[in-house]
């Protein structure tokens, strides 16, 4: 399986090669070719060694996903290193992990001068990572069995995985179909708005995966196009939604899609946050229209964990920055390409707190948590509270390790928050205008780990540190 995944990455790397040829960047072809060669070689080696046992259990699904992502990022970093775009391997690894996990945190201060094919690969990793490469492999595999479900569960964000149709492969294809369709639509809309074609495609990749790598030094704001900003805001919001809803619309059950409770929470949070920030900005003597646009863009960007910026929110009032920080924790919906804790988890956590208080008032009271009118069993609730606790634990430990670098408090804390939630920019020196190049190697490794942990929802990454982590079995 791991071999197949590496082969898939090699095949995907042909796209930037095509870009390099198209733009005549002949000197960049070599790094890609070397990477493709290495990937194919490793994959072949893995294929030769037949795994001893073919059965994949839940544990193996997690392991496979974690190992795949690690390998993918390590190999994906090679073009940056060999082409000397990012000479340091750790830096390149950080950048690639940031790409695949759709974080969008960068260590590059200057991106505009990079070769177009390298930029393409950088943004394309967002697109691959958004829906998940293993889901992609499942979609193209000729035959899947039940065991693929374990893989899907480990890679798709969210506490539960629902299938759209009975066959997993068909489900994966539908998901990728919707995903690619929406990305193309966005690209076309951006081109209509006058953005260069290349930029439109790359920004669409970054939006679709809710990544946030920008190809201009000053982000989306650099295009000075309110049209582009509004279009991207809307699409960031859309990509943060559960893709099952789009499927419901496709099969003409749009009404039941509108009744989805998570959708209500999500839109509610966006509306509330936008409103408060708009009021703040208007008070600060921005025109109302501009305030609304800026705040809507920033709220969508952060809650969907994209991390695009149009304004330097470091200079905004503290309360608005805190709102953005809270949104980083919330994240997108289950089954979206976004990161964070996920809206439905937040909903369950809030309802659980309410239940806790009710129980304290009347200990004999029986109460079930319901989402979409259906009871959530206690097993799931415990899972969610446990997940939240683990999330916070990882956060605290990582913050401590990063703090050894001696950066100021805001940057130290938000760097971990933003990486764990796969957002991108933080506050302070890693805000919209800054980047992560000032961090030490240790911090970069820890932050890369956080990004992977956040994207794969913690468990798979922790499995790497157990005795089951033998890559041989998963070749």
């Amino acid at each position, binding site marked *: 399986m791991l071999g197949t995944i590496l082969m898939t990455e090699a095949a995907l790397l042909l796209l930037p090669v095509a870009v390099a040829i198209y733009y005549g960047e002949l000197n960049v072809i070599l790094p890609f070719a070397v990477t493709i060669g290495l990937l194919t070689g490793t994959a072949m080696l893995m294929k030769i060694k037949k795994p001893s046992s073919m059965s994949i259990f*839940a544990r193996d699904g997690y392991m496979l996903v974690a190992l795949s992502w690690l390998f993918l990022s390590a190999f994906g970093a090679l073009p940056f290193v060999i082409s000397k775009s990012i000479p340091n391997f750790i830096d390149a690894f950080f950048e690639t992990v940031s790409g695949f996990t759709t974080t969008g945190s960068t260590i590059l201060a200057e991106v505009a001068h990079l070769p177009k094919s390298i930029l393409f690969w950088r943004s394309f990793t967002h697109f691959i990572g958004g829906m998940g490469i293993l889901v992609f492999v499942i979609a193209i595999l000729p035959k*899947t*069995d*039940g065991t*693929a*479900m*374990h893989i899907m569960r480990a890679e798709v964000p969210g506490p539960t995985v629902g*299938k759209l*149709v*009975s*066959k*997993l*492969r*068909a489900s994966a294809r539908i998901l990728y179909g919707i995903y690619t369709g929406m990305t193309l639509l966005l690209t076309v809309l951006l081109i209509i708005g006058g953005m260069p074609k290349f930029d439109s495609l790359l920004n669409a990749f970054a939006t679709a995966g809710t990544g946030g790598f920008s190809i201009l030094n000053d982000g989306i704001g650099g295009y000075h196009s309110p049209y582009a900003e509004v279009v991207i805001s809307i699409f960031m919001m859309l990509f943060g939604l559960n893709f099952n809803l789009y499927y419901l619309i496709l099969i003409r059950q749009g009404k039941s899609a509108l009744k989805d409770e998570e959708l209500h929470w999500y839109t509610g949070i966006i509306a509330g946050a936008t409103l408060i920030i708009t009021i703040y900005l208007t008070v600060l003597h921005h025109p109302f229209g501009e305030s609304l646009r800026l705040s809507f863009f920033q709220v969508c960007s952060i809650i969907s964990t994209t991390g695009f910026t149009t304004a330097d929110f470091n200079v905004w009032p503290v309360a608005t920055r805190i709102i953005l920080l809270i949104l980083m924790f919330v994240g997108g919906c289950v089954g979206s390409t976004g990161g964070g804790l996920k809206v439905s988890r937040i909903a369950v956590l809030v309802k659980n707190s309410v239940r806790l208080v009710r129980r304290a008032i009347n200990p004999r009271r029986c109460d079930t948590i319901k989402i979409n009118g259906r009871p959530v*069993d206690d097993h799931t609730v415990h899972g969610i509270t446990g997940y939240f606790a683990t999330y916070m634990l990882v956060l605290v430990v990582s913050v401590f390790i990063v703090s050894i670098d001696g950066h100021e408090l805001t940057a130290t804390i938000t760097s971990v928050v933003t990486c764990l939630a796969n957002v991108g920019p933080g506050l302070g020196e890693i805000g919209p205008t800054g980047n992560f190049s000032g961090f030490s190697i240790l911090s970069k490794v820890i932050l890369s780990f956080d990004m992977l942990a956040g994207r794969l929802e913690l468990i798979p990454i922790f499995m790497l540190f157990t005795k089951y982590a033998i890559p041989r079995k998963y070749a």
Partner: protein
Amino acid sequence: MYIIIVGLGKLGINLTAQLSKEGHDIVVVDEKSSVVTSVVDTYDVMGICGNGATVNILTEAGAKKAKLLIACTGSDEFNILCCMFAKNIGTENTISRVRNPDYVDQHLFLKEKIGINMIVNPEYETANEISRIIRFPSVSKLDAFAGGKVEIAMITIRENNPLCGMAVNEIKKKFKANVIVCAVQRENSVYIPSGDFLFRQDDSINITGTRSELSTFLKQIGVYKQRLKDIMIIGGGKIGLYLSELLSQTGRNIKLIDSNERKCRELTGMLDEVTVICGDGTDQDVLDEQNLENHDALVALTDIDEENIIVSMYAMSKNVKKVITKVDRHSYSILNDVGLETLVSPQIIAGNLVTRYVRALQNSAGNSQINTLYKLVGGKVEAVEFSVPMDAGYENIPFKDLSFLPNLLIVCIIRHGRIIFPSGDDVMKGGDNVIVITSDRILEDLHDIFI
């Protein structure tokens, strides 16, 4: 094909496993969320948690566009209700598990008036299979084709068997018996043997032939067993009841043992000429007291696999000629190693029936009808009986000029009631029935056997 399976008991899970392996779109429905989760985890199917006999849940499961619904919960009434609802919502075909003996006589009514396309009674089918084995005790498994004209029998080659070390093509010369060896199980692999395949001790072989040819052959290799007269059945459940009825009709002496007194009284009311004993049939003292060693056969049919296995092993040690064991958890591969020769599992038998029905539905667009389908050697090998259609394009061509897929054997041709064991010069003709054996693939149409 879009299939809904309601009820995830042993049968439901077995059907899910078999049908999802064949690549169908399956939705499973059960009320217990834990069962649904574990099935969805193991097989590539969609799960819905809820009461399958409500219009809401059936609609959610897609009963409107489903080609087939299989209701196999533990309750007959629930199953029938579920099928009626589904049929009205728009499901094309429905299969219901109905096993209460009281309802057995109503099959025709259920089919014609209620519109249930197929009634499956795993217990009855199991009893039927056991009775066939008892009537031909030399083999450990027996499946019939073409209305019983041709049979596939499984035997295991023990020590001192003249077949040890013999090649497949020597059989015809040495024994002058018209039988064909169609599949050999050796340890965990299955072979469809060619002429130079050598038999070894402990191979389980499947041989095809008519009853009389098989008998001659088995006599010659010394595994023929005399007619079994005195049968002891442990467990008076539904299978025990059906089996006693079937066997007592053939004039055999049946002793049926069950520990439940009320049940025993009910059984005596329903069965004549059967000795019903009230006692714990898994107790060694009771077995000895009831003269186990003087019986020709023991059939262990209690609800608990472990008890069946232990009773069977005890019977083997007492040199009972034929021991038949019912096991529900047939997935344990060591069962054959402990020396139990004849295992029956209601789930597998019912699974075969349903699979055949599904295959035939799938094939209704094609033209070669599937008449019979058996899964042999733990489902690894399939034996399928097809009718050859008129003007199919491959009839009247000698076999040596056709190219067949590897691991495939045309075992015999049945033409106007005559059995032909084909050689290279034989041909298929329209209206013939052919039996095809194959491993590791799924045959839906006779077209599929060619490269």
